[in-house]
């Protein structure tokens, strides 16, 4: 029975990825058209802001929450949690978007590189999937329990996202285009 279900799953999964592929092909064609229309648009240049770790620690800080609790004001507690939740959700969405951007830039470079490493690519891909799952989980947990209880998981996401950037560094450095264009350290 399991064998039959898994065989059916293979057929259905192939159908699903084919439909996704067909839809993505249409949107990719539109993206290429848009990027050639607006060459200076920062959304197409791969530039984005990095969120500092201090800010992450602050968003999910328990100290601030402890301080608010000392006021014994339910309305202040509610207001604090509401505001923190909004900021935390914004941070997770921005981090998720940054991670996608980093990976998109990486795959753009990697797909044409002759000296690509299978294991590095595979580990980067797994790390990427793990990060996206973490971001999804964080979004759910922030909505459910609020930011002050999620400091550790947020730090983990931050650390993983940094690892992806560092794993991409040797690759970018070894590419001939990068060697000529990348500015030296200030």
């Amino acid at each position: 029975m399991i064998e039959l279900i898994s065989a059916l799953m293979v057929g259905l999964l192939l159908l699903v990825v084919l439909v996704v592929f067909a839809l993505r092909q249409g949107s990719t064609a539109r993206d290429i058209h848009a990027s050639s229309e607006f060459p200076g648009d920062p959304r197409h240049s791969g530039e984005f802001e990095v969120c500092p770790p201090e800010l992450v620690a602050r968003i999910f800080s328990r100290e601030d929450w402890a301080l608010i609790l000392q006021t014994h004001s339910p309305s202040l507690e509610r207001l604090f949690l509401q505001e923190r939740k909004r900021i935390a959700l914004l941070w997770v969405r921005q981090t998720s978007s940054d991670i996608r951007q980093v990976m998109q830039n990486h795959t753009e470079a990697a797909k044409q590189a002759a000296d690509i490493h299978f294991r590095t690519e595979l580990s980067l891909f797994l790390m990427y999937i793990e990060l996206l799952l973490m971001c999804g989980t964080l979004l759910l947990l922030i909505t459910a329990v609020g930011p002050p209880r999620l400091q550790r998981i947020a730090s983990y996401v931050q650390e993983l996202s940094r690892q992806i950037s560092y794993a991409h560094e040797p690759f970018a450095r070894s590419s001939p285009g990068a060697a000529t264009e990348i500015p030296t350290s200030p």
Partner: protein
Amino acid sequence: MLDEFIRWGGLPTEILLLVRGLQTKLASRYPAFYLYIFFVLSQSFLRLYVYQWKPSFYRYTYWSTEFVSILVGCGVVFEIFRVGLRAYPGASHMARNSLLLLFLLALVVALANAANDPRWWAEASVTEIQRTMRIVQALSLFALVLLFLHYSITFGRNLRGILFGYGLFVASSVIWLTFAYSGSGRFRNYWFYLYPMSYDISLLVWIVHLWGYRPNPQTKESAQFERQYERTAAATKRRLQEARSYLDKAIER
């Protein structure tokens, strides 16, 4: 009547597809695909002949030509990989390794199953073997499409049609053969019509996408990539430097 139409209705479409392929010289660009269509057309005539004049051989002819068509179909999968990733050596390298890994995995699973049940090879039905071969083909296509999605590979209209049509046919074959193998009569009756119909749908997809030659957008993208890559590499480096400075600050604290 409907049964006969579904079963043999694909013949004129296959002939039209081949004629257009020769007229537009697409046959020389995608030889494996047109060889596959030519083979399917020939096997249909052969089956029709055997069905009419030597019905006792029909079953044998049907299954043996099915096996050969799966093998010829592997050429179509290889052509999708070869033409689609021609301009992308990195993605091509990843696809080669992924497919190799997949085949090794399939081989290990098959050997493990055979070791657990040594009588499998002798007792396996034709449907079962064919289903296994189609599953391997479906997994190869699945891995390739995932890779195309991950590396945002853009296809031209022609290659997109070949992939979509053939993928649709392989996926429906796996589903049909699974129902046929399970022996559930109700589903089997439906799929008896739906399976050839799914091939007719694939033929329509191919006719629409392969009516005329449309180049793959590779050369244009390659030129654009040269400009984008320098910007991307510089932006990535800048981000890493920023990340490092934030990390240094965090360590100092």
